[in-house]
């Protein structure tokens, strides 16, 4: 039984993905119920996994009993168990929220929607848990194709944005595959723990350098590392509300996880910092992305596209933390993966609530009636915004604190300056909204009416998850050391 833990979650999602279209019924809500139960089950299993892995160590699962490197292996170590837990729990809350939004925005497309969400989750969970690179590529494609589909079900123009993502995503996946080809050529294996043993023996091989470069580029595109982020802003902005929340909260995080896996757990710290210092490049790209994303976020007029550019910046933090290749930077990066999942999730849910209740999320058209009619939504927005800016005692402060400590430890003063400067830029674009919703009186009567709502808040299913997210951000901040000591220190890659 214990040995089967890793495979339970993908099995749940695969079953749900098939059940939803098979059990067609007249009430479209049933699709949501199945999807929600599947995620709930997966989240429970992932909690169980974390406990088991922390107490008893890594679980290896061999598919069909074939031993690696011939067979495919699933690995649950502290890092993968943790990321699996993060994405499943975040998605659980977002799906609770999704029921009402989708009923309005995706009318009559709900059955395929939830089915595809299940496939996407299958892909993401598979990517995290697999211990085999080719298998990772397969799951990468499963999740990517599902995301293309989900994104295309959005506003006008979303199909085009999704197509663009499809082109870029396919290029990324091709780079990754090509890299795998080179890797296989020199090493003769695609099993991660196997490769970890082989790579130090090949450390001078130029083919290995090419393989690493191609793989990092490919994952970089999926992760939206600046300047490979081109697909992200439009895709996030134009997708339907709940899709944006789902993808923004977890999509790029999974790729960030894959990046950590490749750099630190397969190629090893020494290889990526000294023999072929790819972390150096990633560091500067991360820093550039932080500044670029923050400045463009300030320039946006619409909340979702602002959040999208802010995501580019936040990915920059994670990249920067990875690139530091020291324990504090690593803690900061992993902590920021979870913190950002909750922050961005919360913020996109706020955008969804605004769209449902007022019909738009244009920043300039928000005014204080919004805060009066939707006090809870706006309070949650404020908490998430303060966390994004990185003010204590909310979660975002602490991941930044670790990143700053990491930068100081490496004497990377410019990176430290970038992290701090971006806090200010974050403050600019978040306080702009806070100012509008709490202080600004509307310019015209017509606008006042556009915000005159029948009921104050958009119902419990849309408020509950948001409040939970906001509270989680506070708890994540105050109890960050608990996470760091009990989970993140266990996943510290060898050599850091």
């Amino acid at each position, binding site marked *: 039984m214990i040995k089967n833990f890793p495979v339970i979650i993908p099995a749940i999602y695969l079953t749900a993905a098939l059940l939803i279209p098979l059990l067609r019924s007249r009430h479209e809500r049933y699709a949501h119920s199945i999807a929600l139960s599947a995620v709930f089950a997966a989240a429970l299993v992932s909690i169980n996994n974390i406990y088991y892995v922390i107490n008893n160590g890594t679980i290896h699962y061999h598919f069909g009993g074939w031993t690696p490197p011939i067979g495919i292996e699933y690995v649950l170590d502290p890092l993968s168990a943790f990321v699996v837990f993060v994405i499943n729990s975040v998605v659980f809350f977002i799906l609770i929220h999704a029921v009402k939004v989708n009923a309005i925005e995706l009318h009559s497309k709900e059955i395929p929607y939830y089915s595809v969400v299940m496939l996407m989750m299958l892909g993401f969970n598979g990517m995290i848990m697999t211990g085999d690179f080719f298998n990772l590529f397969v799951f990468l494609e499963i999740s990517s194709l599902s995301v293309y589909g989900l994104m295309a079900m959005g506003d006008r123009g979303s199909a085009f944005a999704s197509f663009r993502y499809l082109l870029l995503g396919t290029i990324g996946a091709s780079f990754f595959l090509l890299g795998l080809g080179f890797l296989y050529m020199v090493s003769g294996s695609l099993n991660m723990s196997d490769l970890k043993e082989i790579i130090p023996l090949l450390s001078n091989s130029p083919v290995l350098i090419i393989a690493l470069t191609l793989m990092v580029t490919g994952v970089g595109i999926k992760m939206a590392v600046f300047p490979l982020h081109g697909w992200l802003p439009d895709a996030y902005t134009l997708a339907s509300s709940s899709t944006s929340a789902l993808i923004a909260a977890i999509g790029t995080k999974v790729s960030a996880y894959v990046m950590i896996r490749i750099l630190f757990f397969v190629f090893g710290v020494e290889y990526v910092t000294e023999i072929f210092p790819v972390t150096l490049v990633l560091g500067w790209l991360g820093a550039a992305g932080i500044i670029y994303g923050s400045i463009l976020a300030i320039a946006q007029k619409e909340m979702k596209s602002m959040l999208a550019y802010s995501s580019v910046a936040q990915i920059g933090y994670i990249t920067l933390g990875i690139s530091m290749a020291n324990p504090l930077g690593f803690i900061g990066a992993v902590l920021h993966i979870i913190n950002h999942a909750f922050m961005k999730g919360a913020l996109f849910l706020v955008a969804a609530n605004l769209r449902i209740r007022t019909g738009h999320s244009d920043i300039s058209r928000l005014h204080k009636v919004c805060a009066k009619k939707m006090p809870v939504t706006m309070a949650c927005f404020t908490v998430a915004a*303060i966390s994004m*800016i990185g*003010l*204590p*005692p909310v979660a975002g*402060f*602490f991941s*930044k*604190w*670790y990143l*700053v*400590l990491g*930068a*100081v*430890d490496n004497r990377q003063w410019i990176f*430290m*300056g970038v992290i*701090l*400067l971006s*806090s*200010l830029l974050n*403050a600019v674009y978040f*306080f702009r909204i806070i*100012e509008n919703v*709490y*202080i600004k009186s509307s310019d015209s009567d017509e606008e006042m009416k556009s915000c005159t709502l029948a009921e104050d808040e958009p119902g419990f299913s849309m408020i509950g998850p948001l409040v939970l997210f906001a509270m989680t951000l506070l708890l994540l*901040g*105050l*109890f*960050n*050391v*608990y996470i*760091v*000591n009990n989970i993140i220190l266990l996943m510290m890659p060898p050599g850091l």
Partner: protein
Amino acid sequence: MNNEMSYISYVPFLAVMVSLAAVPLIILSDKKPNLRESWTLIAAFVKFALVFSLVPAAMQGYTAEVNLLEISPGIHLALKADQFGIFFALIASGLWIFTSFYSIGYVRGNSEKKQTRYFASFAVCLSSTIGVAFSANLLTFIVFYEILTIATYPLVIHKETPEAISGGRKYLAYTLTAGLCLIAASAWVYDLTGTLDFAAGGILNHVSLSPSVAVPLFMLFLAGVGVKAGIMPLHGWLPSAMVAPTPVSALLHAVAVVKSGVFAVIRVVGFVFGPNVMENFNLNTILAAFAGTTIILASLIALKQDNLKARLAYSTVGHLSYIVLGAALLTEAGFLGGILHIATHATMKITLFFCAGAIYVNLHRENISQLDGIGKIMPWTMGAFTIGAMGLAGVPPVNGFLSKWFLALGALEADKLFILGIFIISGLLNAAYFFPIVHRAFFKEGVNLEGYGEAPLFMVVPLVCTAVFSVILGLDPDLFFNFYQFAFEIANSLLR
């Protein structure tokens, strides 16, 4: 510092929390103003009582401390009520009582909007001020310092006029940047020493530093704490923030916020760097240069202001630098004078701001040129104003004389006649910008004053109390408890 001399106590924690606990009660009694204000008053009294209960043990050298929870590996959210912390907390919580009464008179007399938000933010501000006072390490300090920044923002923009909004933006831009400098500086200290716990004599006292580390590190700290302490050229937010309602200016911009700034300066000078390090790297000269320039420039600018609150604001900027300059002398009398001036300036300046508010509520006049003859209709208010003005100019027997005396002694002790000159010139300038107001009020003929009387009792009683208090502290500082002895011991401990 000394384990035998410290005991575990939750009193400091309770003192921080009591006003925070009042916040939900204040918000819930939104519709019942009398009940709402009683929560504020209860919290204010309880807070003062809690802080005061720490005094007896502290007099005997016992320090109450408590570690709450770990917020970064090895660093706790820790509160420690050392003598200096208690000293500052006593002033802040004591004056909060007066301000609470005064606020009630002010917001009702002025029929301000959003009174609930006002009182709730005020309570959060006081919580974080006491938190700043009792912080046992730099990270805890940052947490409360930043909460103070955020909680003050709604008060600065309270009037919601374009002027208030731009004042609020300026306030955030200055204080958030400062907070980031402080975070960077603390991260650097942590990297150098592995600890962030304040220690009398300095965290950095036993670390070998080079000037290329010490000077930039000090400048970062100075930028971090100098904004709230109003050291030029970082003072720009203070006059703009005067758009806030007068009780806010009185308590926050004369006591809590700016005093947190100077409190932080003394923490940095005495507890982070330590007098030895300050002396070795000539950091005290840097600090003295900034503070000395600020004193003279601010006094000159104050001369030119016609708006009463603006004049008081620039006077505040000048007087804050008295405290900073006192600390920069690094002598016992200098520290003593600086620490005493934290208290004496607080009681005097709060009196003056209370008077300005009383005049505004009563007569709707803000400019000094309109104050002719008002002494005849508002004798109590202007009498208190005169006492405050005399104190700030250093005229005995008001308490301002006491602190100035020790500051001058400190300058002599340090053998720096130049600094003594600065204190003397500034005293004259103080007289030059305050006494014309007194002269106008009492000796000129007023216009359009028929039908007006004294301001509401809720305002007059507190301001007379603070004025009387200023005189008492000047005549017999040890009347209530060994106030002077207390300050003396703090100054002594810094140089041990």
